[in-house]
């Protein structure tokens, strides 16, 4: 059981902490110009964060108990291809479709 004090303490502090992390640069710096070297690095935030976020979900999915699995690898490859040439929706169809197809083949043989 989680005690009331524990729950509300953690929730409120986590809420405040998370807000401050999100607010940080955007909020406190306001309209000030960041130094050029920092701006240079900030151009690569998205391509720096998301591949690292994706990698463990593809290589060691919880659903397989963290085992490397062909269906997930091939699904991710299909999503990359569709994402490069089509749209978000296209990548979702390609990725999920490939996953289902390979999972079906794995269970059939």
């Amino acid at each position, binding site marked *: 059981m989680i005690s009331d004090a524990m729950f509300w303490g953690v929730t409120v502090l986590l809420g405040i902490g998370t807000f401050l992390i999100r607010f940080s640069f955007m909020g406190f710096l306001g309209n000030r110009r960041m130094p050029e070297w920092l701006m240079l690095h900030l151009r690569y935030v998205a391509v720096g964060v998301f591949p690292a976020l994706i990698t463990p979900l593809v290589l060691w999915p919880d659903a397989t108990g963290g085992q490397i699995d062909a269906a997930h690898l091939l699904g991710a490859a299909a999503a990359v291809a569709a*994402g490069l040439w089509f749209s*978000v929706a296209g990548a979702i169809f390609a990725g999920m479709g490939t996953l289902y197809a390979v999972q079906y083949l794995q269970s059939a043989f």
Partner: protein
Amino acid sequence: MRPEQTRSRHARAAYWRGLRDCVPFIIIIVPYSMLFGVVARDAGLNLLEAMSMSVIVIAGASQFTAVALMQEHAPVFIVLLAALAVNARMAMYSAALQPHVGRAPIRLRAIMAYLMVDQAFALSIREYDDHPEMRLREKLAYYFGVITPACGAWYAFTFLGAVLGRAVPPELSLHFAVPVCFIALVAPMMKSLPHVVAAFVSILSAVLFADLPYNAALVVAALLAMIAGARCEVWLARRRVMA
């Protein structure tokens, strides 16, 4: 038409574009938020508590971490440290968005910060980079367009999961929609050599540092990738000057 009218029309169009761009991502928000509702109830939290957490924090991965550690009776300090570490990446989102929206009134920036989920950052930064001519009002409108379905679905489906006590069946493998959606977002960003190098370093570091505690691999990988991308850009520029 007066310029004022044109501007508000552009802002309205940007809002709807953001909303539309976010719609495919509902496929990952629905199972994830329902699962949180279910996990929270299983942990003995009531409906009000489950909802409060989703509304106060709105950061899925850190909510799961916090609930799991509270169930194990970890000390408050450890629960907070672990859950906040999961959200550390958002400081980088905040920094990357600052040059675009730093001129907005502080009240709006506070609301944007509160609602800053991964999709909001990823879709907005892509839109801003692709359309440097966008005005502040349009940038803000686009962001709030993305947020509308993302956070709406997050609240609504946490509620549904907590009330029904049932998540989307695991046989549907919707867990895989999470990496797939983010792949779909990142793939079109591979538009220059430095971007490709950064993504490659990010993947490699995520594997190399996978065993670091407190989700540190993500932050380390992102920082190394940013340095790699920046160095590569500088190197390319120098080579161009010399040639």
